């Protein structure tokens, strides 16, 4: 028994060390990318009319005159304490700006993820039970087509449909979650659906083939020979085994959803991270951009880490040697 625990603990330790190294690498890449490029924050903040002396003063104030590695470590230290510096364009702290815009992006991602899971699992289960039958063929063809529609195109079509068919205004409607949570969720539903639909198709396709594979696997045959019914086999064997690989796929889907929401909120004119990003790009606000990239990358790294851990919990072959 002790041997088992040892290999499990070692697995989690190794993953944790890898997580730390990845975090460092990600932060370093972000910092390096913004250090190579010409034009620094000081001249952006002060605008084109500033005198060189003014710029130099501000550079000192911001610490831009120090060696790069000192800048990197103070930036990294700040990042750990939630201090990502001041936005050059807004003059407000970057963390504050991100915190303001986060509810929209995060809300859409969560709603979209729920849609993906809730819709793709049952449909895949039905499809995989009788592959080649009508229900499966309809789901599969639909899946293939929806897979290929870019979320922002889907959004445009949805806006067109809702406005011309139902006379609904779906663009630019937004309620803060602090005012009315339900109407906040309500105005995120359609945008979330537009992000989720291609991902539902993708997850469905993956789950369907995994489940078909599982249904034909030797251990399912053994379970059948033990006298289990189809439903019991699905819940005891097919679903848990499909989840092992599905966890990774869903974590990839979630990171895609996060990226997709940056675009779709632009189509629906919602005040999320996407709009902040575009403003940052347009005003060449490097502290804001680097802060946002680091922040989103952190979320993704942690997401993948979580997926790895969940997979290891689900699959003893990974955690116990």
């Amino acid at each position, binding site marked *: 028994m002790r041997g088992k625990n040892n290999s499990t603990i070692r697995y989690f330790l190794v993953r944790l060390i890898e997580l730390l190294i*990845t975090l460092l*690498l990600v932060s370093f*890449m972000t910092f390096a990318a913004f250090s190579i490029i010409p034009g620094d924050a000081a001249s952006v903040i002060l605008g084109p009319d500033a005198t060189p002396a003014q710029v130099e003063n501000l550079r000192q104030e911001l610490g831009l005159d120090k060696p790069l590695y000192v800048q990197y470590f103070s930036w990294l230290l700040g990042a750990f304490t939630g201090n990502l510096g001041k936005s050059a364009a807004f003059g407000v702290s970057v963390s504050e700006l991100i915190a303001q815009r986060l509810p929209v992006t995060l809300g859409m991602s969560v709603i979209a993820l729920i849609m993906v899971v809730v819709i793709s699992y049952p449909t895949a289960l039905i499809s995989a039970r009788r592959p080649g039958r009508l229900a499966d063929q309809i789901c599969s063809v639909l899946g*293939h087509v929806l897979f290929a529609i*870019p979320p922002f195109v889907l959004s445009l079509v949805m806006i067109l449909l809702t406005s*011309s068919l139902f006379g609904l205004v779906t663009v630019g409607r937004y309620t803060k979650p602090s005012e009315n949570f339900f109407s906040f969720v309500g105005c995120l539903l359609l945008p979330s659906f537009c992000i989720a639909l291609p991902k539902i198709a993708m997850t469905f396709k993956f789950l369907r083939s*995994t489940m078909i594979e599982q249904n034909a696997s030797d251990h399912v045959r053994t379970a059948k020979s033990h006298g289990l019914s189809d439903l019991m086999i699905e819940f005891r064997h097919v679903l848990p085994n499909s989840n092992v690989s599905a966890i990774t796929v869903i974590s990839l889907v979630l990171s*895609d959803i996060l990226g997709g929401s940056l675009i779709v909120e*632009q189509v629906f004119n919602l005040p999320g991270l996407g709009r902040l990003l575009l403003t940052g790009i347009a005003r060449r606000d490097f502290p804001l951009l680097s802060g946002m*990239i680091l922040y989103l990358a952190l979320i993704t790294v942690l997401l993948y880490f979580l997926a790895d851990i969940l997979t290891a919990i689900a699959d003893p072959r990974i955690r116990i040697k």
Partner: protein
Amino acid sequence: MNRRYIDSRRIFFITGGILLGIVILAFLVSLFWTPYDPNTTNAATRLLPPSAEHLMGTDNFGRDVFSRILSASKYTIFISFSGVAIALVIGTLTGLPAGYFGGISDRVIMLLMNSVMCFPGILLALVAVAVAGPSMFNVVWALGIVFGPTFARVYRSGTLEIKERDYILHARVMGVNPVRIMAAHIFPNLMSQILPATVIGLANMTLFESAMSYLGLGVQPPEASFGKMLSDSQAYMTRAPWLIIFPALMLVFYILGLYFISEGIRVNNSRGGIVR
């Protein structure tokens, strides 16, 4: 039961070929001829619905939508193909050695690749282009870098599988040098995995490229691109839905065509599409 499987593959391939063919035809035609100049504005012909003169109507600047679509397909195809080429080169140079040598070099290379993959792809591409300045070539290399790790993974997993086969062991015992083993012994056998991945890569890259153009960070005006055409016409879409429909259709045709073809050429890959 075998039959249904083969048939569905053929149907996918043919449908995909037709859809892709439409876009490629538009691209070929645009090289030699467009009915009107795609970029000349004309206040007299603003927002005209489709007619015999303007097959797909005109936009808010009076430009012929059909001509713009022909010319936009050119950029879409160029960007996706050259971006994938860059990503393939990155993937080959990193994924193959990582998989073949394993050990420390594998860990280091894959850690680097995975770190790149931790940045949401679209974000990375957007910021890269924003920082380097929006232009078609910047879009191409940014997308190439963003997609490189994906191909590296495909190459690596394929190599890991093949390097254990007896013929590679034979080659190692015979003393063939590692570079030649990778290039002549392993690489040709990766084709069955690389080809579908490449086609899917083309489609995914187009998804990104169109989103970037939609946000104004892709092909620069006045040149036409599907994404930019869609964002420009969003304000007029209830009045002039043809401005949305045709570019959206072309975009979906291209991506869907590529997906279908990848589904059609998928060889001996049990994941996906098999009806038992």
